[in-house]
């Protein structure tokens, strides 16, 4: 019966109206993305410029979010960190998505020996405790931004293979895939121009949830000292460092980056939920 109602609303209208939370999350995500993109222009200060005499100042008219232990403007750093964190999340997820989906699609479609082999490799990768794997990878590669991205991408990789594989395998015997064969499409073409666009929405859900997870992961690594190096501003590092100053009442150092970090993950998660609802109103999670 839900299909009856579904037919009466355009997808976009449903997307923003089926739940106000999704609408808010979408708005907030756009806002975050906008702030991140324009960070260099709207930041009141240079996020790296120290001013030790004015260190650890509480939020006030000059520094809305206060200053840190080197007198740097926390607001500017939160903005710059957003730029970096979103970039890390987007590129890590993008990388694993591109690679995982490609591999997964072909495996799912072709099946056979290759599929079994890849299945084994995926098994091996997923048998690792992921966080420890990320730690080991960052420790092995060195903790630069790129390596953090690679590590995050590698541990996400098997999930995309799985999702893509399952989605493709579920569709490979559908009429329109067989019809594509009849129409004279080669296998790569069927995978790329028929199957891929159809599984992308499902993958997009995974991706949006993963974006939040990637940021969380980076924060966890930073906490263990395996994250981004100073003085580059990054939310996880800022939270981890800012927490030092809590006991002496410098709450702004942890509150602002922490809230933005949580908010961002929350947005991505809600957005993922919204996407899922949109695609399958019956199985909302």
């Amino acid at each position: 019966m839900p299909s009856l109602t579904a037919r009466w609303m355009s997808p976009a209208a449903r997307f923003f109206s089926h739940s106000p939370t999704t609408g808010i999350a979408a708005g907030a995500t756009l806002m975050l993305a906008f702030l991140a993109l324009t960070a260099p222009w709207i930041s009141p200060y240079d996020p790296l410029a120290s001013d030790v005499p004015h260190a650890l100042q509480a939020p006030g008219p000059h520094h809305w979010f206060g200053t840190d232990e080197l007198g740097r403007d926390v607001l500017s750093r939160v903005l710059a960190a957003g730029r970096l964190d979103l970039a890390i999340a987007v590129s890590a997820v993008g990388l694993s998505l591109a690679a995982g989906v490609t591999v997964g699609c072909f495996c799912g479609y072709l099946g056979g020996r290759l599929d079994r082999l890849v299945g084994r490799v995926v098994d091996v990768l997923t048998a690792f405790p992921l966080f420890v794997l990320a730690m080991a990878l960052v420790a092995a590669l060195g903790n630069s931004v790129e390596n953090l991205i690679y590590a995050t991408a590698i541990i996400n990789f098997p999930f995309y293979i799985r999702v893509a594989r399952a989605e493709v395998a579920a569709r490979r015997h559908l009429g329109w895939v067989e019809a594509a064969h009849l129409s004279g499409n080669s296998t790569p073409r069927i995978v790329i121009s028929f199957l891929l666009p159809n599984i992308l929405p499902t993958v997009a859900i995974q991706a949006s949830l993963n974006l939040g997870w990637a940021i969380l992961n980076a924060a966890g690594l930073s906490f263990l000292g395996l994250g981004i190096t100073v003085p580059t501003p990054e939310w996880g590092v800022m939270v981890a460092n800012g927490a030092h100053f809590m006991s002496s009442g410098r709450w702004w150092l942890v509150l602002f980056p922490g809230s933005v970090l949580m908010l961002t993950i929350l947005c991505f998660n809600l957005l993922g939920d919204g996407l899922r609802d949109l695609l399958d109103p019956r199985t909302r999670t």
Partner: protein
Amino acid sequence: MMRGILDIDALNVRFTGRNSHFDALRGVSLSLEQGRILGVVGESGSGKSVTGLSVMGLLPQQASITGGRIRFRDQDITARTPRHLRGASIAMVFQNPHAALNPTRRICDQLSDVIQAHESLDRGAIRQRVIHLLESVNFPDVSRRMGVYPHELSGGLCQRVMIAMAIACSPSVIIADEPTTGLDVLTQKAVMDLLFRLSRERAMSMMLITHDLGLAAQYCDSIAVMQKGTVVESGSPANIFSNPQHAYTQRLIEACTTMHPAQPHPAGKTTSRKRRPLLEVSNLRKRYANGHLAVDDVSFTIAPGESLGLIGESGSGKSTLSRLVGRLLDPDDGAISFEGRSIGTIGAHDFFRAEQRPHIQLVFQDAAGSLNPRFTAFDSIADPVRRLGPARDPGALRHHVEKCAADVGLAPALLDRYPHQLSGGQCARVGIARAISVDPKLLILDEPTAALDVLAQSEILALLERLRREKGMSYLFVSHDLHIVRMICDRMVILQNGKIVETGNCEEVFQNPRAPYTAQLLAAIPHFRPASQEAAAATGTEFAGS
């Protein structure tokens, strides 16, 4: 209106979305009399199922009764149907019995659950009742098989269990919502006969919801025809058939008589078996990885311009066969030759570049499911042209696609729509247009009308018939429906468990079936004869027994 056991009076049901609403029922009035069978007939979306669910109080969350009244005996159950009525006094039989039974619970436990919900009996008494119920629905080998899970049973047996559940507490009303959809022809008949017998034996009233006017006419005492949430016409089957008032009913009857002709359909067939065969299949064999032998030593030929029907129930291997011939699957053994050249040896994954590819095309069973959800109708039709046809500039391509669309009676305006924006019949037309866009010599039709409403079905069949005449294509027509095959085909092949049990000219097979299986199939066809209906209803014996 006469007071029956169940009265529905001017019922309105509305589905509410966040920004929109939709009236599923608009002033529906029906009355079910004691011991009688009421057929509610209509296409999907006409509101017939919503009517049944309203009575049960099982409307989905977003639906609500906005007007009218439902009365059971003397009780108003409009606002809610009390739990002690549901199952005990009014029971329901659903379509798709496999899904309608709890997969993780033994069938005897499910039956016990129903009895326990309404009566306080001790374990032994419940067990006795369960055994008795299963016996009364002709469930085979009850004592041994009552402990099985639904997935271990066939669809027909599941439906018997479902019926046993429905009659468990001797309800006075049974609502049967498309009880035979998804079942094989033979099972369909058995299930309907069972329901009919039980209803008569136990003097239960039954509301039979179906899209099949012929079926309703055969079993019902009275019929209500629904369209777009309203009852457009009601009366006895004979009256409705002999004197349909509403245009919609008239169209339904017309389609129905086409589909269930009392006399052989005088379709213009061209039998031309003079030239060498277009397709020759010999000793084809296909075994799946799970060991199931789907196609076992099958041989047949199709002459140019000939139409061959392939008949079989689900699981008989007919879909596998059509995919083998369509070169989507590789056979394990045997040969397929097309115009005298072997094509069975070219791997399915490589066949897309074979020169025969454009010549063999397939039309799929699930019309909507065979269209790429991301492609517009235009893209779907244009795709084979782009890949297999001669190179065309965009204008010429557009022209060609529009011509194909016109051939199948698809309005050009629909070409820019996506599959979910098209109706089932329109999707089927797109599927056919796609197949004929490269001018195939052999068109394999895999139950092309199975998922369609009666009206759409008859339209598509007429279209296929016309196309064959115009384009001189050969058909391999796969179906479980003997009548349809009889309409379209010259010859037919009857398949059972992957083996051919009978081959022959359509009319000969119909008149004089040689294999017992064929005879069974023929007997199971809903044989709608308005004239004899009165007699059947009066005696109630003709259909008893299963």
